């Protein structure tokens, strides 16, 4: 642990040294920043994961467009170094933001105004130091809950049995690395990730995980880092199917792709948090006919939806024929359907008909 931290501190120090070298030799001080724009992100077909390329850009100090970001980068690097050196417990990125936010005397502005400013810079530092933020002593707020046949030994020493977590399920902790969240037992036949809490809650109440001997998890919509990283660990460590269940709309499809391939925004993190074996279980356009989903639960695609379909269609990781067809079918169909809407067929429809039928007939998209 101490050794890992020494390496990180040395990397942070290097950033500062580089800047000082520039100043001492009379140059415009700069830092090398990994380019995180879409141009430097690629989908690696071989591994099936979105990866960050090797492009770098200089961030200069004496440049009115970059000076503020330059300053912010140094402030965050400094703070992370300090916290690690003092062996503090991990902070949220929001806490880190608040510890640094203050008015710059004489400039009439704050170091940071909103968290949206510090978040991308934390990502810059992750990339510069080639270190996940969880190892930089930073966490994101997790949202997920899980139930099913898994036993975990927490860093606290608590042993958590996810078959015995009551109506609420077991909460996903902010850090899910093995040293924090050691999976002792896993006897599930498959893992089912549900987009929405409400659907997870219904399945949990009906003890779907028990009847089907599976692990039932939700990230409450777009998953946070912890849920993604945890799913990646499941794939790495256990050879069981992983199914993603979302709304039938471009947003739902995208959530599936985030779990499976990662995301452009967090391309650096994606390499460590992608889950290549994940399969898309539904809802898909075929289901509308196959299950005769009632028209009252269809919702017209709006302009934003259609625009998003176009965008997604062009992503390299959606180029498989089956997915291109799904996307164009959706567009042709002209309606979206949310997974919650299955309750309008019958409350038990999801657990008793829909999911078993899909799994039995292996009707997945990949």
């Amino acid at each position, binding site marked *: 642990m101490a050794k890992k931290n020494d390496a990180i501190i040395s990397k*942070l*120090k290097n*950033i*500062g*040294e580089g*800047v*000082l070298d520039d*100043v*001492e030799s*009379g140059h*415009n*001080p700069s830092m090398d*920043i*990994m*380019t*995180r*724009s879409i*141009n*430097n992100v690629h989908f690696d077909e071989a591994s099936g994961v979105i990866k960050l390329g090797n492009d770098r*850009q*200089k*961030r*200069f*100090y*004496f*440049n*009115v*467009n*970059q*000076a*503020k*970001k*330059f*300053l912010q980068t*140094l*402030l965050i*690097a*400094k703070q992370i*170094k*300090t916290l690690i050196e003092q062996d503090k417990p991990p902070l949220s990125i929001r806490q880190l933001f608040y510890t640094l936010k203050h008015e*710059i*005397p*004489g*400039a009439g*502005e704050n*170091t940071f105004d909103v968290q949206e400013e510090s978040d*991308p*810079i934390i*990502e*810059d530092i992750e990339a510069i130091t080639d270190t996940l933020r969880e190892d930089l002593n930073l966490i994101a707020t997790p949202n997920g809950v899980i139930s099913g046949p898994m036993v975990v030994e927490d860093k606290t020493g608590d042993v958590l049995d996810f078959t015995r977590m009551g109506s609420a399920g077991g909460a996903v902790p902010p850090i899910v690395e093995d040293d924090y969240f050691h999976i002792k037992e896993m006897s599930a036949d498959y893992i089912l990730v549900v987009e929405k809490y409400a659907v997870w809650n219904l399945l949990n109440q009906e003890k779907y995980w028990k009847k089907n001997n599976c692990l039932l998890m939700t990230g409450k919509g777009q998953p946070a880092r912890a849920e993604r990283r945890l799913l990646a660990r499941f794939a790495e460590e256990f050879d069981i199917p992983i199914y993603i269940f979302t709304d039938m709309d471009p947003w739902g499809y995208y959530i599936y792709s985030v779990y499976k391939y990662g995301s452009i925004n967090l391309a650096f993190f994606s390499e460590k948090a992608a889950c290549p074996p994940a399969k898309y279980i539904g809802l898909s356009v075929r289901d509308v006919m196959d299950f005769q989903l009632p028209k009252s639960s269809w919702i017209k695609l709006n302009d934003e939806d259609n625009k998003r379909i176009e965008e997604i269609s062009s992503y390299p990781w959606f180029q498989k024929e089956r997915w291109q067809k799904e996307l164009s079918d959706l567009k042709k169909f002209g309606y979206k359907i949310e997974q919650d809407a299955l309750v309008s067929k019958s409350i038990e429809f999801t657990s008793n008909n829909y999911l078993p039928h899909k799994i039995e007939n292996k009707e997945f998209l990949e």
Partner: protein
Amino acid sequence: MTSSKVSREEKGPIALELAKKQKSISVAEFFEKNRHMLGFDSLPRCLITCIKEAVDNSLDACEESSILPDIYIRIRKVDDKMLNIVVEDNGPGIHKDVLPRVFGKLLYGSRFHAIRQSRGQQGIGISAAVLYGQLTSGKPARITSKIDSKLPAYMYDLKIDTETNEPRILSERIDEFFTSKGTRIEIEMEAAYVRGRQSVLEYLKNTSIVNPHARFTFIDPYNERFTFERASDILPKKPVEIKPHPRGIELGTLVKMLQVTDIKKLSSFLNSEFTKVGGYTAENICREANIDPNMVPHDLSMDIEGVKRLLGAFQKIKVMSPPRDCLSPITEDLLKKGVIQNCNIDFIATASRPVNASRGNPFMVEAVIAFGGDIEREGKADIIRFANRVPLMYQQGACAITHAIERINWKHYNMEQPKNAKLPSGPIMVLVHIASTNVPFTSESKDAVADIPEIMDDVELAVRQCARELSRFLSEQKKALEARKKIRIFESYTKEVANALSVLTGKDEAHIEARFLDILNKKYSKFIEEIPAEDNAGGE
């Protein structure tokens, strides 16, 4: 149906009866009925028109006689509606033989046929004021004039007989009290004295700007005295009378000139009856027109096709621009002085265009843009228009000057121009002066210049030239402000940067800060300005 029935009862040609009603109309009757055409419509405007006509005459007379003008204007209230107006000058005076007709006959004057810049030209203005005065007050105008310190001053009370358009003298006597050379006119008329944008004071202020050699003293109806002092003691150069310029002359005019000339040889005719046409040019023109230069002009006048060819040749053969000396521009220098004397401003730019010609009349455009200072910050730019040193007070929206200015996209010049607005907003004043031997007004009230393309183009070019200077001024002002702001921000940032670097590297904070400030002071401009296309490093 009834009325159309009548038409069928024929009782000899109707034309016979109609013909009996035809008769001549006197020009005085015409303008009495149409006095709004001469600027006598609303009551405040009647006052300004009257003063303007009198002041124009005074200025013209003084300048023709090389006298620095000193003009006294007094307005008194007679009753609720009636004002008594006096305008008195130190000019040459008017000889008693012509004085009654100068003030009592429309279309009578000395400057109509001369191609030369002057204020009055048509011989209508002051007579129209007399006409309006007698129409509304029933009283004659009183004119006093003294032409030599040794001769007595004559005083006339006179009216205009509208049916004949001739003066009617009611009394004529010697005024013992009028001791210095000059002319004085006193008219009583229905009129109203107001303040503001279209007021006598504003008129005098603007007149003073474009006549920096004149002094004006004004006593308002409340007995308050205003003096507009000279900005210059030098009289403007007297404009020289010239022959017409071939560029833009019209077929009909040319035919008439050919008909009436005594000269027997076409080339000599061209050479002597047109300005800037020398013997060589005259020969060239004839050759281009394929006409014998020795032809008798009167013979050519019978051959319309030949005259048309001659006219075509005028356009093709290059003739020098009309001479500038028939015009009396204010000059950029004096325009500047005039504006600065009247107004506290931050910036001023002037421009003057070369002499140009339209329909054979030379003209020249001068422009000023003033910015900031006491100029009203809210609302759109002020346009101040002048023609032949006379301010144009009314009908801004109908004027070629306004239209030319409105053609400009002011955003190109760093100025704010709200969507759909035709003028920029902010503390901006645009002055335009058109000097011409014959300013083409849209009406005899001389409020607006007609939309003649050549004039509009020159106005636009002159104003654009000023606008470019203002634009440079504004962008430099903005740049300086931004540079100062940038340095201040970098100084503030540097403290934070130095502290962070000190924590990261363990080096001394004060030393780091000093090194940074060093670079900032020596090279900031280089660094700040070399901004790459877009900062994508952050990768959002």
